[in-house]
């Protein structure tokens, strides 16, 4: 069996003492920062990126992946204990998780989240190992026309899944694509939109944009809202869920895992969509839907399993096609590029130790999360009771140092400041920033593939519909767009997001 041999290679890499250490450090740091309210995975990864520069590529990616699901899990802890989602994929966890905590059942809520996440992580690691190789084979048949159409599909999906106005989501993507073009044109080395500033001649770094939009602007908004934070300090008496809890939730864990793993693969999908869909599904099929929002354990188990499953399977499009499907994956592209790895189907064949090592490390990371988090819940509770006024100067400083140390450039800090202001305005005017970051990373790739496709077809745009694969991708994109524009579905979509 190829799979076993591959997994053997992977665990051989991931289980070396150093890599387990980096995985552990990543998971621990990710959880630590993820627990802080108002700092999501995107800002967390951007902030900690410099810490991985000096590592060998495999270790760096293992640590970054660890940071990602650590941050994800940390966000759930905040959701349960403080009723503030650490990041958007745990918004629904707040509903029943916090209700459970107020009834003195924070322990079982956090435990079932950890257990569900671990189960989901195990399943989706297997899904990744099974489906990545055949998908990479498909990707080898992709020409520039197919890649362009695939990116169109990814962007359309991101638009459809963004909350709020469709028009604004499209505009955010286009703006992201444009900002991504700043700097030298890859083909002609013509400098675009540099406004005569030598500092812009290398383009704008993705970390700069991410830190501004997701780091600085979130700090300002948090300071402004100063929501009353009420940590449930009631002693967590019982950590482990009762037999009844387990009986109530195991099916929800299964359903959440399946739904999350499926939605994570979709371009534009990822953890947020998975958790929302899983929660809605549980509520729909429950015998007594009125229990939801009042501390139903299924309402924690399903979305927590789903967001972990989805966050792992969203690596599939990145590792097989080289196309990031959401903002976090866009950051991973940047991280891989820094280490000289071009994401795409060739990674699997050219650097098998890196590919399989990373996959194996995901399972180890999930195991570490369970081992780490159950005993450490007490520490996270204490961290949450530290007032925000003492925490945010530290967050601010780490953001600044993170941006600066990418290129030792003070200009980058200044640019991040500009994007912080822009991000703040976007929050005020109801524009979701995630599609912008996705567009930003895809901009140059899209232009490059468009150019090559048109060159090969001698300027005939029909190439996008005469290649069957490309046509299929475009048809799916068109269908998606149509689905949202049709009023009935549109109402459903709004309902789903309201919940």
């Amino acid at each position: 069996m190829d799979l076993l041999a591959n997994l053997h290679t992977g665990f051989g890499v991931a289980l070396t003492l150093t890599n387990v250490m980096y995985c552990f450090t990543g998971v621990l740091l990710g959880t630590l920062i993820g627990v802080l309210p108002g700092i999501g995975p995107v800002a967390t990864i951007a902030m900690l990126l410099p810490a991985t520069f000096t590592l060998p590529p495999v270790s760096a990616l293992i640590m970054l992946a660890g940071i990602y699901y650590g941050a994800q899990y940390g966000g759930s802890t905040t959701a349960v204990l403080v009723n503030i989602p650490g990041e958007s994929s745990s918004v629904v966890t707040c509903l029943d998780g916090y209700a459970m905590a107020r009834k003195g059942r924070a322990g079982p809520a956090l435990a079932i989240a950890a257990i569900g996440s671990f189960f989901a992580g195990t399943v989706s690691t297997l899904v990744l190992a099974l489906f990545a190789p055949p998908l990479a084979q498909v990707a080898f048949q992709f020409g520039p026309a197919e890649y362009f159409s695939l990116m169109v599909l990814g962007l359309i999906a991101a638009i459809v899944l963004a909350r709020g106005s469709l028009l604004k989501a499209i505009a955010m993507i286009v703006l992201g694509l444009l900002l991504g073009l700043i700097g030298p044109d890859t083909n002609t080395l013509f400098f675009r939109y540099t406004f005569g500033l030598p500092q812009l001649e290398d383009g704008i770094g993705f970390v700069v944009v991410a830190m501004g939009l997701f780091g600085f602007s979130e700090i300002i908004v948090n300071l402004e809202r100063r929501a009353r934070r009420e940590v449930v300090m009631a002693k967590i008496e019982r950590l482990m869920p009762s037999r009844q809890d387990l009986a109530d939730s195991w099916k929800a864990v299964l359903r959440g895992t399946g739904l999350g793993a499926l939605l994570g693969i979709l371009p534009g999908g990822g953890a947020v969509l998975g958790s929302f869909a899983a929660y809605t599904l549980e509520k729909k099929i429950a015998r007594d839907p009125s229990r939801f929002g009042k501390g139903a354990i299924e309402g924690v188990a399903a979305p927590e399993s789903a967001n972990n499953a989805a966050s792992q399977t969203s690596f599939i499009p990145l590792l097989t096609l080289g196309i990031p499907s959401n903002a976090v994956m866009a950051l991973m592209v940047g991280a891989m590029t820094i280490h000289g790895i071009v994401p795409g189907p060739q990674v699997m064949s050219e650097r098998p130790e890196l590919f399989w090592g990373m996959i194996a490390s995901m399972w180890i990371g999930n195991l570490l999360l369970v081992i780490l988090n159950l005993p450490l819940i007490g520490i996270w509770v204490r961290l949450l009771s530290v007032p925000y006024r003492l925490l945010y100067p530290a967050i601010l400083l780490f953001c600044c140092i993170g941006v600066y140390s990418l290129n030792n450039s003070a200009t980058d800090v200044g640019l991040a400041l500009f994007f912080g202001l822009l991000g703040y305005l976007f929050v005020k005017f109801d524009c979701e920033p995630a599609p912008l970051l996705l567009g930003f990373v895809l901009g140059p790739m899209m232009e490059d593939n468009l150019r090559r496709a048109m060159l090969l077809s001698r300027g005939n745009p029909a190439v996008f519909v005469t290649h069957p694969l490309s046509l299929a991708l475009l048809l799916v994109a068109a269908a998606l767009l149509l689905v949202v524009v049709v009023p009935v579905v549109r109402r459903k979509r709004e309902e789903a997001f309201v919940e």
Partner: protein
Amino acid sequence: MGVRIRSPRDFWAGVIFLSFGLCAVVVGRDYPVGTARQMGAGYFPMVLGGILTLLGVLVCLRSLLAAGEKPEAFGVRPLLLVLVAVGAFAASIDTIGLVAATVLLTVIGAAASPESRWHEVAAVVVVLLGVAVGVFVYGLGLPFKLLP
């Protein structure tokens, strides 16, 4: 009578899109466009700029027709002081070094919250200086200029 902005959030979002779109078109007007077969540096940005301008106009127009919420009030103090704090860090890190930049960032940044207490801020500064120098400079070996 006449035109009224019914959805200020949409209107201002539209204005942002419109200005970026126009800026892309105006600044890029002299970039070589090339042909569909041999696209020049100006082709893709020009198309995107045009689309963004159009979208900006559409969003603005829609805000005149469909009603929407007002934006939340701007918190001037946190906004300005956080931006100034980051700006101060950017301006000082290469000139007078990490130690001074950290102090400036922390003190100005702390002033952004009305809840900050000065004796606490002093403690935070000391702790963060320790972390910045200890972890980033000595621990991770990042090349910072420390002192003027």
